[in-house]
Structures are given as C-alpha cells and as structure tokens.
C-alpha cells in the first residue's frame, strides 16, 4: 500500500506504524465522562467493512500522525489528512 502523505508525497506503508480507528483522537473527558464512556472509547470499535478512518504514524519519516481513509475490503486508500488538521477542524487547539 502506498500512502500519499500530504507533505512528503507517496510513501510506502511500511514506513508507518498503524494504531487503529481515528475515533481514538476523540478521547472523552476524564473528569466528567464516566466509566461506561471510557470503556466504550478504549475497547469497542465500529470495525467496518468498507471505508475506515484510521491513524497511521510516520515513524520512519517525519513523525507525523495521519488520518488515512482506507477501504478495508479492497485496501484502496481514499483520502489522507494530517491528524493535527483533523483535530483543529474538530475544535481542538492542537
């Protein structure tokens, strides 16, 4: 698989480390969310067959986190974004 890095261009997926569903970026607030919400965040997954937004870390490159939208049935990569841009667009400061 080739991941089209927004800054570095096409890179082999081997340069990256895979973390999982991009929803992991939306960690609930530890003081208010409660144990059920944290349990759901940490352990449960949508695990879709089809388009999946997921976190890849460019460990052997610029050390950036990317949000890759990839089809889990065909392995086709549909979209690549910088994770920090996604986080900021979602209202976070960093």
């Amino acid at each position: 698989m080739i991941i089209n890095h927004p800054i570095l261009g096409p890179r082999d997926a081997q340069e990256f480390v895979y973390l999982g569903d991009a929803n992991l970026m939306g960690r609930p607030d530890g003081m208010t969310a409660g144990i059920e919400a944290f349990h759901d965040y940490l352990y449960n997954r949508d695990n879709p067959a089809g388009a999946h937004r997921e976190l890849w870390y460019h460990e052997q490159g610029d050390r950036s986190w990317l949000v890759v939208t990839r089809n889990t049935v065909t392995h086709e990569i549909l979209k690549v974004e910088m994770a920090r841009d996604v986080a900021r667009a979602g209202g976070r400061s960093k």
Partner: protein
Amino acid sequence: MRYSGFRVIAEALTGHKGWKPVWRDPAPQAEYDYIIVGGGGHGLATAYYLAKEFKQARIAVLEKGYLGGGNVGRNTTIIRSNYLLEGNEPFYEFSLKLWEGLEQDFNYNAMVSQRGIINLIHTDAQRDAFTRRGNGMILNGADAEMLNRDQVRALYPFLNFDNARFPIKGALMQRRGGTVRHDAVAWGYARGADMRGVDLIQNCEVTGMRIENGRIRGVETSRGFIGAKKVGVAVAGSSSKVMAHAGMRLPIESHVLQAFVSEGLKPFINGVMTFGAGHFYVSQSDKGGLVFGGDIDGYNSYAQRGNLPVIEDVAEGGMALMPAIGRARLLRTWGGIMDMSMDGSPIIDKTHVEGLYFNGGWCYGGFKATPASGWCFAHLLAKDEPHKTATAYRFDRFLKGLMIDEKGQGAQPNLH
C-alpha cells in the same frame, strides 16, 4: 454410514460404488430451536455437541458460502495448550483432550498428529518466562518440558544455533501439541452433526436479526426469514458485521493473517517450531510442504489476502532460523480474516438480547480451540450458563478490568 478399515477394503473390492454424499443439502425450515450462524469449525462443532452431548434437536447451521470455506480451511493447523493465564489454560487443555479423542468420537479421520511443538528460547529472561509458562501448564494438567540447547540440536541439527542476534539457547516443548488436517475437522463435525439431524444450510447469509421486546425471534437471510428460539453467532472475522445487526459494537478488530506453503521437500521437520523473536513458525505437512507463517499484516482488513511486506518479513524470519530453506520455492500464500480482540483472548457469552449468544474474538489461535469452543458454546446455548472452563470469556471483562492478556500488550489488537 460408519467409516472403518473394513469399509475401505470392501469398497476397494467393489469399485468404490458404495460411498454416499457425506451430508444432506436441506432447504431451510420455517423455524428452529437453535440457529448457529457460521459454518466454520466453531459453528459446526457447536451444532455437533448440541445434538450429541446436550441432546438438543431442531438445530440449523447457516453458512453464507460453503462449509469450511473460512478460517477453518485457511489456518496452519497447529494445536497446543501452552498458555499461561488462569482464564485460558484450563480451556485450551480441555480442547487438547477433546482433540485426543476426536476421531473416535466423530468417526472421521482428522489426521490428529501429536508431533510436539517447541517454542525457541534465546535469552535468560525468555527462559524464565517459558519456565513459568510451563509450570502454569503443568498446574492445569497439561504437559510441558524445558529443552536445553543440545536437546534442541538433537531434534533439529540444521537450525542456525549461533545467530548473532537470536542464538538458540533451548526451548519449551509440549509433546502433546501438534497438527490436525484442518478441512477434515470441518467435514467430520459437519457429517457428525448431519447424522444427528442438524440441517446444514449453505449459501445462506445472515443479513439481519429480528428482535422484538429485547428477544431474538429469528434471522433474515439471503434465503428468507428463518425463525429461532435461540441464535448463536460464530462467524470469526465477520463478528462485528453480524453483531451490528443486533446493534452491538464489539471489542474486536478484523485483521488479515497470511499463511505460506513451500514445494514438497523430504521430511526434515517432524514437529512444530515457533521462532517468536523472528516472527516465524513452521511445520511440515505429510505431503512434504513446509507450512509456515508469521505476524498479521497489522491494519484493519476484510480482504482475504495480505500484502508483500509481511511475506518478505516472514521469509526473512525463516531464513534467519533455517538457512537451509533458502532454495525452496514458495508454492502458495493466502490470507484469512481474524477477529482480533482487545486482549487477545476470546469471548463466549450471552448478549443484551435474550436468546442471542456470541462466540468470537479467536484471533490467530482459534483452530486449536475448535472442539472446546464448540462444546462450551453448546453448553451455554443449552443450559444458559457458561461451561466451567469458559467462565472468564465474558464481554464485561473489559469493563471490570478482568482482561486475559497473555502478552500484556493492552487494548491494541494488532499487537496481540
């Protein structure tokens, strides 16, 4: 028809005209007491034990493709009970004991071969860890033995003992571990279930669930609605897809694992060998092919095929351990979709829907579990309480902090 040596000779003398199809091909009935979703090893074993051991009737297995076309026919056929943790080891030892009597029990040759499995050791710390694991196994009635370097050398003199990074210092041996002809396991259970009246319904994909007032009424399928009092789901890599029909999100990710077979070679590996440090394991089939594998590809996938980087990684692991295989040619590679759970251990449990039960999260190790998984799932379906070796395989263990994490990796499925 019972199979026996006599039968084989009689058929040979009469032109093999007496063999019959091994199971029926029934049309689905309107309603069953039990529907098992998924005609893989676990689903078929569940139906078999439900009928045979728990004396239940009106049972159907619904399979979206053909029986045994999933992981049960794609795995590398290793059986063992060399786990450490309390929640796991009694279950896997129960499974190994069932394997030992399986062929007589279901009157089918599954080629159960207890040829021994070794896990290689390269450091003192690893030796300590494996010694602890071996003691855990013995405490639970399994067999375990520590081999020193010379004992490993006597078994496999051609290994690269003085690899600079991972010199071989010994191994943990389980002599009762080994391999089983995987397809024959599916066929044997299917035949045994069919003989006891279970309807095995192929080309029948479950596409929805009918749930009324919190109770399961049946399943929607590609062959129409089929009613059921109880539904047990055992669909391995498709677990999240099927349980989504009941509104559930599971502690599971689907990942692809690849397997490899070389051209046929003269016998030189008589047991199973794992080289964990090099992400490689191998056995040799009775036809002579080396059957081997390594890590999962590592990203969510529902494609039954993997990518080249893992093939390269596995081949490197094989070469590091056994330089002698350098000229052997790879014949085939393929992939299967596994239900990787958040702690690397399975789930056999009820759900929030009355009458709906779940069996999954087997990761890359569910083949060895097939007999016990079927038995324990049948126990849960028939009696509404878990079998004594499967009490820890609950959904709520993640909420309660009772994870069964053999590797200590935490909630990241691709590291288990």
